[in-house]
């Protein structure tokens, strides 16, 4: 039972991270109908920004790990939000009327450029970096099952971000504008919504959330590396697709579903746990064949 408990915590942890990545894909697709493949690498930049800020705060003499953590998260989120808005402003919006494939390709190449830039220009960038352990290392024992405080805090923080996003989208004027733009860009404009601003804010929002996922990932595995965005981006994208691209709750569901599949692949199946991704992606392929528009389809009925 104890092992199962660990897997469960691990699964919820990963599900939260994947959900945070997936909501970005779904937000971008919602407002602009584009798929931004650089999202995973933007996440990686966010993780490195957070890593740098944590080291920087330590170098400046802030020994309190909570100050380092605050600096890390603040710097990662704000820097990545700016990066996301800049990508939208100078790469994606100018290509708005170009074929969708062009945007897909350009963001794919941008992702490679970001990844290689970190590898080449970050000091010793090609090697993994040890992310400092900034969370308390307390652990609670429940019978045979150990719950670590850092894991619990990360899950709580991640879920708080998801709930916060839900409130933002559903309860605020900004969220109403984002939903309006996602449903009908042109009519949203005629309501007096500043379309460009909403697109930039949405990209900043999605990218900032990805940075949270990046820092969480760094704290959980105590490591960041230049290639971490590749798999996380792909998983986040798959999660958004199986949930139903454009639907926020589909993306969250997809994230947790993918993590669950990985855990099933690691625990319940009769082959080595190294095959968990093979299993999870195979199920994703099957799911897409079964429900091409995702589990909670957002768009299919809307095309009039």
């Amino acid at each position, binding site marked *: 039972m104890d092992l199962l408990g660990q897997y469960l915590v691990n699964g919820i942890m990963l599900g939260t991270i994947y959900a945070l990545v997936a909501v970005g894909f779904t937000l971008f697709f919602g407002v602009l109908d584009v798929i931004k493949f650089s999202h995973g690498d933007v996440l990686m930049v966010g993780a490195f920004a957070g890593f740098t800020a944590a080291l920087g705060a330590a170098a400046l003499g802030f020994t309190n790990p909570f100050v380092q953590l605050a600096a890390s998260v603040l710097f990662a989120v704000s820097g990545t939000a700016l990066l996301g808005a800049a990508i939208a402003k100078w790469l994606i919006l100018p290509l708005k009327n170009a074929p969708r494939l062009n945007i897909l390709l350009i963001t794919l190449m941008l992702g490679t450029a970001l990844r290689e830039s970190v590898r080449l220009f970050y000091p010793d960038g090609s090697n993994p970096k040890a992310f400092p352990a900034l969370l308390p290392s307390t652990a609670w024992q429940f019978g045979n099952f150990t719950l670590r405080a850092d894991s619990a805090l990360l899950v709580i923080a991640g879920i708080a971000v998801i709930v916060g996003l839900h409130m933002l989208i559903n309860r605020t*004027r900004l969220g*109403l*504008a984002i*939903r*309006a733009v996602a*449903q*009908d860009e*042109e*009519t*949203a*404009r*005629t*309501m*007096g*919504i*500043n*379309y*460009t601003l909403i697109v930039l804010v949405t990209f900043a929002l999605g990218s900032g959330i990805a940075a949270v996922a990046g820092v969480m990932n760094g704290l959980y595995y105590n490591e960041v590396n230049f290639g971490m965005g590749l798999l996380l981006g792909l998983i986040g994208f798959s999660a958004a697709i199986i949930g139903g691209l454009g639907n926020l709750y589909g993306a969250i569901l997809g994230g947790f579903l993918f993590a669950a599949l990985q855990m099933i692949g690691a625990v319940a199946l009769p082959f080595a746990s190294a095959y968990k991704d093979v299993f999870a992606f195979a199920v994703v392929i099957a799911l897409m064949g079964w429900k091409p528009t995702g589990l909670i389809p957002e768009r299919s009925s*809307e095309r009039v």
Partner: protein
Amino acid sequence: MDAIAPLPAIEISGLYTAYDKADVLTDVNIVAPAGQITCLLGSNGAGKTTLIRSILGLTPPHAGSIKVFGEDVAGLPTHRVIAKGVACIPEGRRMFPKLTVEENLRLGAYQEPAEAEIRRRLAEVYSVFPRLAERRGQLAGTMSGGEQAMVSIGRGLMGKPRVLLIDEPSLGLSPLYVKENFRIIENVRAQGLTVFLVEQNVHQTLAISDSGYVVSGGRVVAQGSAAELRNNADVRAAYFG
């Protein structure tokens, strides 16, 4: 035009608008006096909707000026045109289908920051359309065409505009709703709003309009008071058969 009229609500001069370099509107000159209903008549493809899109900045013109109460808005981004006091009830109603009725209405007042004022306007719209009050929490996409038309009109009024652009309000509606819509448009004018009404439905449109224009092939081919247009031989030939 009326010599004692104040600054016109809309004054369009020498307007050219093109899609992909092919002119759709050619040297269009239109004046919509404040506080009146000015209509724009024309068959499908005459350029009526393009004119509305040009005013709103959705398809910016490449020459000419569009003045809203004296301020040139040609080429401004749409939200800045709306900020001048313009609202639009678009062709085909264009609901946000997955937003509730109330959310749709609130979007009409998007540029109004004061919640108290938004609530006051909501109450006003609900008093005009009691049906919408009953259905305020329902998704707009699940309502009937006539109810959606109410949402669309209510949404246009929520912005407390000075000029209301209405694009084919009778399209696809039953005669009963069409009649009701025209009655509401008249009421709106009675409250001092300027209405710029684009329609194909000549009889009912001219019955409530003060003056109008007829467009064909992207040009204004006739203009005058509603009575003049009714008696104009070209208009009769084109519409009254």
